[in-house]
């Protein structure tokens, strides 16, 4: 029963990994930018929520209405002002720019808010749970996270296939030259995609923070690695694969936790390396070009 419980918790943990991975996937799929600062964007999102909570007293759900657009807007302008220029220079430049951001953000956060954990209290949500059978119960917050993750993935999928801007994004990923010839401002399309990626990252950051009970400046490093592992395990270019990747990673971690509380991170990473070695295309074959 312990193993079954770990399995269930692992699947739910996968929800938060998938959510974290979604933004990374969009940025890579459309812009071919590996955003090394992705975890840091999540951290900033969680910080805004935490500060909003503690200083202004607004609820974490209301703060989402603020956090997501603010970081979406930031993503739009990071793309237009920094990354667009970097993409013109070469392949290395965007990577180095995002790495620069990944160094700036946590250190600035430490200097501004110390290394202390900024709590994100969620009332009794964190402790509420539904007992399925004896020994297996599902936390309400993890369940909610999973539902939001699934809805986000479905929504993004619909956005990319059903709306005009979404289709432009997919076209830009395939052939931005032709898109430009058709009179579409590819820079705007790129910037919107990055805005979307940042916004989703911020949302994921708040959920990640709620799960951990708060956020520290160091969480971003860990989050970007999880997100990246979920993307690779799931298979590049597949949004539902990202969910599968997140679930595999989550299950690996919780099962390792049953054996020893020190093992989850190491085992999660080893599963990732094993997938990389033996199934480098990921566990789900890519169907949709993202």
């Amino acid at each position, binding site marked *: 029963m312990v193993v079954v419980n770990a399995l269930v918790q692992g699947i739910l943990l996968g929800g938060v990994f998938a959510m974290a991975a979604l933004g990374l996937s969009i940025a890579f799929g459309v812009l071919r930018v590996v955003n090394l600062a992705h975890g840091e964007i999540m951290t900033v999102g969680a910080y805004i929520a935490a500060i909003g909570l503690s200083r202004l007293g607004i609820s974490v759900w209301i703060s989402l209405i603020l956090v997501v657009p603010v970081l979406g807007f930031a993503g739009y302008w990071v793309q237009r002002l920094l990354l667009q220029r*970097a993409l013109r220079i070469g392949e290395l430049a965007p990577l180095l720019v995002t790495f620069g951001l990944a160094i700036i953000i946590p*250190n*600035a956060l430490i200097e501004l808010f110390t290394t202390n954990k900024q709590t994100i209290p969620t009332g009794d949500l964190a402790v509420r749970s539904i007992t399925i059978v004896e020994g297996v119960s599902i936390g309400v917050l993890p369940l909610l996270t999973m539902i939001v993750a699934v809805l986000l993935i479905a929504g993004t999928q619909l956005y990319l296939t059903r709306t005009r801007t979404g289709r432009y994004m997919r076209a830009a990923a395939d052939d931005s030259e032709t898109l430009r010839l058709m009179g579409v401002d590819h820079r705007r399309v790129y910037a919107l995609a990055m805005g979307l990626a940042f916004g989703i990252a911020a949302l994921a950051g708040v959920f990640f923070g709620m799960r951990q009970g708060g956020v520290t400046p160091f969480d971003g490093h860990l989050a970007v690695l999880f997100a990246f592992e979920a993307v690779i395990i799931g298979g590049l270019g597949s949004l539902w694969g990202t969910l599968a990747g997140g679930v595999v990673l989550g299950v690996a971690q919780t099962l390792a936790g049953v054996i020893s509380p020190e093992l989850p991170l*190491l085992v999660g*990473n080893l599963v990732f390396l094993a997938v990389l*070695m033996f199934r480098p295309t990921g566990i789900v074959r890519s169907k949709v070009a993202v």
Partner: protein
Amino acid sequence: MQLLSADTVRVDRLRTRMITMQVAGAVAVLLLAFAPYVFEPAVTSQWIKLFYLITLATTWNLLAGYAGMVSVGQQAYIGLGAYGIFVFNDLGMDPYSSALIASIAIGVIAFGLSFVAFRLRGGYFAIGTWVIAEVVRQVVIRFDSLGAGRGRSIVDYTADPILRNLFTYWLALGILAATLISTLFLLRSRMGVALQSIRDDEVAARALGIHVGRTKRIVFVVAGMGAGLAGSIICLQAIGVQSPSQIFSVSFSAFMVFMVLIGGIGTIEGPIVGAVIYWVMDIYFSQLGLWYLVVLGVLAIAVTLFLPNGLWCALTSRFDISVFPVGHRVIPLPGADSSARPRPAEAPVPVKD
């Protein structure tokens, strides 16, 4: 544009400059080796830092600037170099020999890890190396004998602090000299040309019969060993490791990126210039605390966007200077002005570029 052929031009490998370089380099190393007899240990210990910074920058540049592999996980080898000292020191070796033997072990480890890392390309390679560095850290802290998560200090060590500083200084200088010499010869060799062709167009390089995988793997291993040796020096100088998260910190990668970018990626001189700039900045600004890292990040972004070739290239575009001769130069032979000579009717049309 005229047709290039063996009787009209000759390819200059800058041999004279190479010989001058070798003599000057040997004299410089000899002079630096005597520096501890002239300067205070406080001064030379700063130089030790400069030496390992140049080593780190040079090896990272070899990876990213010449082989196109941007790694943000070189801290894996820095940490292994530091912890390698404990491993071999515990077996009864003195710390300095431990450092050298550890570097060979690290070469073997890097060879093994390359098979995982090379599954990924470009940006995903970067983040993959970061994961690998995390894995290495998580494995190392599982060993109680290495101090687990707490860090450790070197046990069996020369008691005399002056002698200690002297040995560390010579080792750091030796490693630096070895790194620069091997980089120079590597880039002058056929492999150097192969490397640059891989960086510019991997598919074309493969089509020309270059062993892309093998060449990249050699560079990956060499860069890992260089970072490992630098890590040993860091450990020797601090007489131990404060904590695993410090020696395996991704900030090391940030420093490497910064030094190479500022100086100029894809040149031998650039990383040296960048390392000196970083070293000077570090001496004067490190009391700013973490804002210092923020400034470093901002500068790295600014240089990437507005001065993508770095300071060294900004200098060389204005003046014709080159310290390390790795290039090939095509020189028209005197009296062989081919445009004046009758050209065969079926002469192939010279291709531009």
